[in-house]
């Protein structure tokens, strides 16, 4: 039985803007088991990035964590002081951002940026830290690491920058890595390189990983379990196989059907009608109900809780039982 490394319970992070309160994360619960990769899937505004920032307690102003518990190795991160958090950030929980060109500081060399992080958390002198930095660059597959370590970020291509960012994230051998859309800005062939690298490193460093993405293909390839988010809430959590084969939440199902597959021929795609809701004034009840083809009047009134479909498979839909039967029939008809 794998131990849980991170458990988020009922997390609420709101942003107080001039236009009103944005309920970016509204009651999110999820867990990451030791050694696994959790795919955190959602569209823009689903709250997946804010969730990861909340765990590290680096939500930008005017965002604020209102409520909830974030248990990391059985300690509540929300009760820690800022000083204690600094020791956790980077050392135990690391973060890779979407855009490698802005996550590296352009005015410092790669060497000094890596050394800075290493020395912050480990008692090493400059020489040792430098040696370690070189080893790290070598591990992430930067050719001629010894020479290139003196270079500045702008001298690297996008893929190479992401490798450097990964090296920096791994420098203190964290036990949990958040990767926020790490390949979205990269080309497909480079994306393939980076994904391969991340899979290798995960086992090499014995890490758990939260992979934030909107790309179902990446999820299928990388994740062990998947949590799907929509409009600041969790819709469904299950193993990767269940998500792709037996999804029960209407949003997950619709999302899968709306994605073009490379293996199929020219045809019309199924669409999810409507738009992503505004989180200042979100729909009442289930936030997906205005776009849901199975919605009934109860969906407007009652906020669905995560319910157990089967072991390890939770869904936040009031009518999942009925929908599951309908979907089964639909799948049978299709087959």
């Amino acid at each position, binding site marked *: 039985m794998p131990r849980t490394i991170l458990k988020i319970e009922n997390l609420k992070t709101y942003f107080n803007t001039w236009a009103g309160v944005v309920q970016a994360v509204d009651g999110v619960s999820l867990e990451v088991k030791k050694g696994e990769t959790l795919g955190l899937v959602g*569209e*823009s505004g689903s709250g997946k990035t804010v969730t990861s920032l909340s765990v590290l307690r680096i939500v930008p102003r005017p965002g604020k964590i209102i409520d909830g518990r974030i248990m990391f190795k059985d300690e509540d991160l929300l009760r820690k002081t800022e000083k204690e958090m600094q020791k956790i950030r980077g050392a135990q929980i690391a973060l890779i951002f979407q855009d490698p060109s802005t996550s590296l500081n352009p005015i410092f060399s790669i060497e000094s940026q890596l050394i800075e992080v290493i020395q912050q958390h480990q008692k090493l002198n400059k020489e040792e830290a430098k040696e370690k930095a070189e080893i790290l660059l070598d591990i992430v597959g930067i050719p001629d690491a010894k020479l290139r370590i003196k270079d500045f970020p702008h001298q690297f*291509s996008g*893929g*190479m920058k992401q490798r450097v960012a990964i090296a920096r994230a791994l420098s203190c051998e964290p036990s949990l890595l958040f990767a926020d859309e790490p390949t979205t800005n990269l*080309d*497909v*062939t*480079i*994306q*393939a*390189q980076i*994904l*391969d690298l991340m899979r290798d490193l995960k086992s090499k460093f014995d890490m758990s990983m939260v992979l934030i993405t*909107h*790309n*179902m*293909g*990446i*999820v*299928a*390839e990388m*994740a062990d379990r998947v949590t799907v988010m929509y409009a600041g809430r969790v819709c469904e959590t299950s193993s*990767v*196989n269940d*998500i*792709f084969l037996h999804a029960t939440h209407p949003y997950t199902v*619709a*999302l*899968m059907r*709306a*994605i*073009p*597959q*490379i*293996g*199929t*021929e*020219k*045809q*019309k*795609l*199924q*669409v*999810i*009608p409507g*738009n*992503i809701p505004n989180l200042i004034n979100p729909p009442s009840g289930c936030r997906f109900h205005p776009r849901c083809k199975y919605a009934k009047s109860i969906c407007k009134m009652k906020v669905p809780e995560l319910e157990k479909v089967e072991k390890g498979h939770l869904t936040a839909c009031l009518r999942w039982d009925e929908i599951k039967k309908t979907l089964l029939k639909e799948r049978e008809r299709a087959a």
Partner: protein
Amino acid sequence: MKELPKNVVLEVEHLKKLFPVFEKGILFSHQTGSIHACDNVSFKVEKGKTLGLVGESGSGKTTLAKTILYLFHPTSGQVFFEGIDVFKTFRSKNKQDILSLRRKMQYIFQDPYSSLNPRMTVADIIMEPYQIHRHIPKKEWPIRMYELLRLVGLEDYHSERYPHEFSGGQRQRVCIARALAVEPEFLIADEPVSSLDVSIRAQILNLLGDLQSKFNLTYIYISHDLSTVRHICDEVAVMYLGRIVELAEVNELFESPRHPYTKALISAVPTSKPGQKSNRIILPGEVPSPINPPLYCRFYPRCKYHIPICKKKDPKLEEILNKHYVSCFRGKEKLD
């Protein structure tokens, strides 16, 4: 005028676009080289069909598209649209001819956030083409505008709103409506869905498909996302470093790609089936700089199938099967 083969609306011949690279001196700057953004590209598009242009960033797909519409000035080559020499018309400075050509060919941009003027209402944006071309009487403008709004799936009351009040998908609909206002025959859609959310992409792709069959439009669809290409294109051209390396009918290309780069590109797309590990071809290295590229095969440094001739000569785009063009010395072989 040029007689084009039957059904062909657009013909591009040996199109070349170089961007000069300057180095600054004390007083004057001098040219030190050129970016070969688009180098000796030729293809044809048939009426009512969609040609997909696929490639990674820096492969020159957007430059190619913008040069066809004379938004960049071509270095050399020719483009014929319905027999009209496009570049000659634009260079002629004959306002009437230019406007009538502009009406026929339109462009849809990647980023629906920067492609709408934030200070104009949707009604102003969609009616601007009417002001420029005056192809319909003024009293019909609002009627046509509302027709277009409904056609792209927006509602009447949206017309008085400003772009910032819309989501990305809705903005892209406005962009499509604006492009349709001139009643074009040919549309270039440059990554029209890549900045949209997954659940919105399908809406826009279906809309483009519907419009195509309704108005018999011809498309060039530019994308780096191969799965959407497979869904909406009839023919696909794969670009690498400013060149077309493979051009074929869509199913032919996806099922039996011949160029090593196409193979790697297709295999690199993550498949949405868990547990199914693809036999992915990982290309070593990265796309080289397009400044002064080598005179031999441009894919040679990353290609594992290379033979001595690859480093000596530049391969030509040749038809190896019926309507299947490959630019590779080993294109006729079946490589694994």
